[in-house]
């Protein structure tokens, strides 16, 4: 072993501990432990870099180590699929791989084929598209495997456009595929993409992303809302239990044994062995398409019209509400004592959290966007319809 090896290992360890935002809403909570984060940017300062994207995306940015991964879709029929990797420090585009949609690209105009957020780990990035195409790329852009789920299961269809994001659990890629045709939750082998298990689901559309919970014995379970909230063993795909919990378009949040489920407001439940115990309901937390975030004893949510609410996580009591400008479909992100929101008009809004909220910055990207921001490596990553922005010091 050379003398440089331990130093390299230590450096990589710092990178991976401090910076990763690996999937939809980071680790599925929308919260980060990052500190000393920027609050915003202007035309002349605060932007570390920006990069032009080849297409639109409702999908969020994800990071692992020094890599930033983004998906996009383009073309007259929205059938051109793109996966890109950028260097987090410089914004240099490391690679760009293209695929074609093999499933239907019919979708509501508010969404597109790059709607599911990809998920990353040390092995690279897994990208799922609303057309049912899923691919795994190594960090250097090598295609590890590809699947056309619509070729495998031809009745997959959702005229509104699918948006549930894949997650990683028990070393497997968990693919949610609720739709009007053959519906399932499947675990794919990360190395070759073949099914490890595939559990049938109701033939109903669903836009939520499953939550992953690690149990005391180290095993993982996957919580997936739909007609009921169903809980699956991540190792086998076996359905462990289901509970009548309100569901909607937005995704559940698991923070310890606290479960937050959006749908007609937000319901907080305590996760117990084999079921849930309802703690409180907050009808005012109407989060629409965005998902709630639990952070330092509070629950935050934003309505589509821009009313930000802070609710006590223990009691459900509303501590405060606060009006922010814009329409919101991206989920709020909490870190470093602040809440970051990204409006559909393309504005990054930073609110200082506390007994009283304080608007501390509102920065304009100049283009529309719907993706949830990512927090990683001391920076905020946001994507508009055309551009990827890295907000942070150079």
């Amino acid at each position, binding site marked *: 072993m050379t003398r440089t090896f331990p130093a390299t290992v230590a450096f990589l360890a710092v990178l991976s501990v401090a910076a990763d935002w690996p999937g939809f809403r980071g680790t599925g909570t929308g919260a980060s432990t990052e500190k000393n984060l920027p609050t915003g940017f202007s035309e002349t300062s605060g932007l570390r870099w920006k990069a032009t994207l080849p297409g639109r995306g409702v999908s969020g940015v994800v990071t692992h180590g020094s890599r930033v991964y983004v998906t996009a879709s383009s073309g007259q029929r929205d059938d051109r699929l793109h996966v890109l990797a950028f260097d987090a420090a410089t914004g240099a585009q490391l*690679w760009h791989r293209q695929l074609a949609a093999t499933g*239907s690209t019919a979708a509501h105009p508010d969404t597109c084929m790059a709607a599911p957020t990809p998920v990353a780990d040390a092995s690279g990035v897994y990208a799922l598209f609303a057309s049912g195409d899923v691919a795994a790329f190594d960090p250097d852009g*090598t295609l590890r495997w590809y699947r056309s789920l619509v070729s495998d299961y031809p009745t997959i269809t959702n005229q509104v456009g699918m948006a549930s994001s894949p997650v990683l659990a028990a070393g497997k890629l968990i693919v949610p595929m609720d739709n009007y045709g053959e519906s399932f939750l499947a675990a794919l082998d990360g190395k070759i993409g073949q099914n490890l298990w595939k559990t049938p689901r109701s033939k109903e559309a669903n836009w939520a992303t499953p939550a992953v919970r690690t149990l005391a014995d180290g095993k993982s379970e996957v919580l997936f809302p739909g007609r009921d909230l169903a809980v699956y063993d991540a190792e086998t795909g076996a359905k462990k239990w289901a509970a009548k919990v309100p569901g909607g378009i937005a995704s559940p949040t698991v923070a310890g044994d606290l479960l937050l489920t959006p749908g007609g407001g937000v319901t907080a439940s305590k996760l117990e062995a084999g079921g849930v115990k309802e703690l409180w309901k907050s009808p005012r937390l109407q989060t629409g398409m965005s998902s709630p975030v639990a952070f330092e004893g509070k629950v935050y949510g934003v309505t589509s019209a821009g009313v930000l609410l802070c609710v006590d996580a223990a009691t459900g009591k509303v501590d405060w509400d606060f009006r922010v400008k814009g329409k919101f479909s991206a989920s709020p992100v909490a870190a470093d004592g602040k809440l970051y929101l990204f409006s559909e008009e393309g504005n990054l809004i930073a609110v200082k959290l506390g007994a009283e909220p304080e608007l501390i910055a509102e920065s304009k990207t100049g283009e529309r966007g719907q993706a949830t921001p990512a927090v990683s490596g001391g920076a905020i990553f946001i994507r508009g319809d055309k551009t990827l922005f890295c907000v942070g010091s150079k």
Partner: protein
Amino acid sequence: MTRSLVLLLALVAVAPAHAADPAPPLQAILAVGKEGAGNADAAAAWKQLVAAGPDTIIPTLTAFDTASPAAANWLRSAVSAVADAEQKAKRPLPAEALKAFVKDDKRNPAARRIAYELYAAAVPGEATNLLAELVNDSESDLRRDAIAERLARAAKVSPAALLAAQKELVPFARDRDQLEQLAKALDAAGEPFNKTTHFNYVTQWLVVGPFDNTAEAGYAKAYPPEAQFDAKAEYPGKLGPVSWKAMQSADEYGTINLNQEIGKVKSAVAYAYAVVEAPAATPVEVRATSPNALQIFLNGEKIYDRNAYHNGRAADAHVAKGTLKAGRNTVLLKVCQDDQKQPWTQGWEFAARVSDATGGRVPLRQALTTPTGETELVPLGTLKAAPAPEKK
């Protein structure tokens, strides 16, 4: 082993031993099957292809000719990886070979589009000139972009040149939005354009239903109209006896709304029957637009089957390939509705047209019943005639 030797060996592995046989790496990719079968071999082959560099681009694009949709994406991403690396290294792509590939209309249309984009990246100006020649291309995006390029060029000359170009190019348009723009311009110039005829919609149907589709079981059940057509037959339907009724679409895109024509019935099956006359045996596509689960039969043979509900109303979402025989051909659609109650699940409707492989018009005729009850053969796309004036 030096890097150049590694690349040389990889290239030898990719180069075809015989022009008709894809090299082993391409064969491995072409062999990928359902549910990830063959992925491990394909991944190794993908690395070989990419390592071989730009010389592998044309063989890889050629392999699209026999590729499944899944295999085509392995190939597509390999080409994009090679091109990405070459462009980053500021090395030229094989422009002349790419141009020749674009011009070879026997090759796979999607592969030719990729070749065009790489050619355009290599020599943008020359590529635009090539594009302008492709208004009748088999690849839909090349065709669309070529029309747009020619219109843009004409617009720079004069309004008269633009109008002339619009008249010249409108027969080549296949996308609804592009055609509507052209038709609108021609309408404004006093030269109305018939979109229904252009797209060859079948506008005259005999429709029967509802039959039962409870628990979606009716989709797989062959009701009597599938076995034999009998215009005078009466069948036991879901709500009582049903018989064939003549229906003519009044919609420029040929829609028949079954909720209006049969009634708003959930968990139901309807059949639509039409006769299409061809002057000679003709390979065609029956292209349908419907949010419902759908089966298409041509001359009694099932040529399309999609058991999925609530697909939206994207034009030509269902494409079935078949061959018309000379003379009389029958087209039968089975349109199934499920029991969902949400507002966006209520559509029960269809439209269908018969086209060539590009979506273009084929000279066909259909039997049309006139308001006076007579039957005549008219071109596809003929809309419902105006009602005969009442005699006082």
